[in-house]
């Protein structure tokens, strides 16, 4: 069952290192290679990959690379050409890559070019009965499946938070460069920058220990018959500042901006968690003014400890979706909570 395994990664925006998820996925690839008696090859893409390769040299794996200015920024045409070239050089049966936005865009196309097959959002890779199985979720985290494929190469894009990151001492790596010529039709698309959405603060923090979710209740009329959106904004932003939490929102809240209702100025669709939003990974989650309906809660699949504040004791969170439901006014609780956290 010996497998020729290629771990494929790209340098991060610093241009020097790999994204953190790459080290987690490398750990999984190394485990799989050891378990299957396979040989691991590393492939790297970026403008300059030497420093990133040095960080991986102690794996002892062969390192292939495609580098140069045309490979500095994400772009489908050039990234696909680079990944294709590395795969053709390494001739792997399995290609394991991190689920970064850059690779989620391009790897499926590479699989098609190589007559391979691809699966994404993999949460674990195991060897069972001398066969390799991968686990992933279907129907937005509502059903989990273990899958196998006969086709090779089989491309597996693995999600973050699913394996311990590999660590090792840096030393000078011996890289085998692959020349990939870039034609004019591959540069029809040009990188123009990175844009942070209009926001009073950077509210999405993937590394935060806490996810704070705001629901539509924050913008609804309160007990006095009036909206208190300005106070809600202050309370939420203060909480994010005091706790270091990442901000999520329910669909009903983020949709309000498109329906000309009073909205939280810093809340965008990027914050949306749930069926049609993200499925973030944080150890803890606190939901406020959100009913905890199933389409939203599927986005909490990977939140371990869950608490909610809601005025309705029969809301969805009470039905086995949260560990603790506080039946209370979130405006009042958040005001006191902010005061306490500011002191700590």
């Amino acid at each position, binding site marked *: 069952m010996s497998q020729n395994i290629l771990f494929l990664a790209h340098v991060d925006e610093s241009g020097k290192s790999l994204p953190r998820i790459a080290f987690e996925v490398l750990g999984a690839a190394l485990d799989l290679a050891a378990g299957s008696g396979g040989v691991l090859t590393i492939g790297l893409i970026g403008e300059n990959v030497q420093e990133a390769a040095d960080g991986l040299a102690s794996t002892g794996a062969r390192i292939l690379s495609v580098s140069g200015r045309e490979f500095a920024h*994400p772009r489908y*045409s050039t990234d*696909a050409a680079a990944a294709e070239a590395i795969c053709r050089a390494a001739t792997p049966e399995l290609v394991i890559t991190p689920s970064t*936005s850059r690779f*989620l*865009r*391009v790897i499926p*196309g590479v*699989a*098609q*070019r190589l007559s391979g*097959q*691809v699966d994404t*959002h993999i949460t674990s890779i195991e060897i*069972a009965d001398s066969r390799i199985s991968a686990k992933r979720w*279907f*129907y*937005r985290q*509502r*059903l*989990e*499946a273990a*899958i*196998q*494929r006969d086709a090779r190469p089989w491309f597996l894009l693995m999600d973050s938070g699913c394996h311990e990151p590999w660590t090792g001492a840096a030393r000078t790596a011996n890289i085998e460069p692959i020349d990939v010529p870039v034609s004019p*039709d591959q540069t*029809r*698309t040009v*990188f*123009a920058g*990175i*844009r942070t*959405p209009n926001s009073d603060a950077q509210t999405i*923090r993937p590394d935060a220990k*806490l996810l704070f979710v705001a629901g539509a209740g924050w913008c609804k009329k309160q007990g006095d018959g009036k909206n208190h959106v300005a106070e809600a904004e202050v309370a939420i932003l203060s909480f994010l500042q005091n*706790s270091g939490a990442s901000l999520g929102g329910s669909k009903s809240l983020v949709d309000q901006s*498109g329906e000309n209702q009073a909205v939280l100025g810093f809340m965008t*669709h990027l914050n*949306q968690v749930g*069926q*049609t939003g993200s499925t973030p990974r944080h150890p803890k989650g*606190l939901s406020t003014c959100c009913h905890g309906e*199933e*389409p939203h809660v*599927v986005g909490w699949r990977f939140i371990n400890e*869950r608490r909610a504040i809601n005025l309705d004791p029969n809301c969805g969170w009470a039905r*086995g979706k*949260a*560990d*603790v*439901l*506080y*039946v*209370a*006014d979130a405006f009042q*609780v958040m005001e*006191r*909570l902010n005061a*306490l*956290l500011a002191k700590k």
Partner: protein
Amino acid sequence: MSNVYHIVVCAGIVPDPLQTLEPITTPTGPALKNEMMLPAVLDPWSGHALYEATNLAAHFPGSKVWLVSAAPKAKLQQVMMNVAQKASFELIPIDVPANGFADAHSVAKILGEAIQTIAGLDRSRLLLFGGWESASRGAGVTMQLVGERLGIRDQFQGVDQLTVQNDGSLEILERIEGGRHLVSTCQGPPALLGWATGNLPEPKNNPQVGMANMRAIMPALQKAKPASLFQNVRYVSVTPPKQQRQTRVVKDRSVDEIAAELAEWIVQS
């Protein structure tokens, strides 16, 4: 004739998200219990792609929108009764028993073949739209596979905004890590855009648009050719998550007590 777009939107249908899903095993692989009875909706991200497509076409006269959908015909008809009221398009239906367990490679193959047979489609003006992921398989690979089959080398995923510049180039914002956007400029079609939510609200139902659409949609559905999907995936197991939490409902505590408990919980490592 500059800035005339031929926009093809690939869209599947999915069970209404409020439905409980229970997996079953069938001779052809896993499926959902009572799947044909579950109410279905247009896949949400594909829906955003459709609304963005019709909005773009409305701003550039001469442009046209096709909706290509591979799904069980009866379910597709049910979904079209609603979707057809929201946007103007020509439906290209493919009658297949597709669900979340169908293999993306097989779905991409029939979608690609269907697009290649669209009469009057100018591939040099083609913008291929779809959702960046589905609410069923959720893989986010089908569009890229279709794009490769059609030879489209300018592809974008997680798109939230498309702006046509004065020179006809396309400025495209794609979601990346950390709640940010990657900004790219593409010279123009052909290009593939897998949409996230975009910026447009769901259009209100317009019965007149619906009636006009359905005049063409019903005959198209009747003529839809059945196709089959080759299953490349072997499912070892399909299970719903088992975890059901024992929720502690705290009703009779003061705001100060609740805040204190939460503060302690938050600062715990």
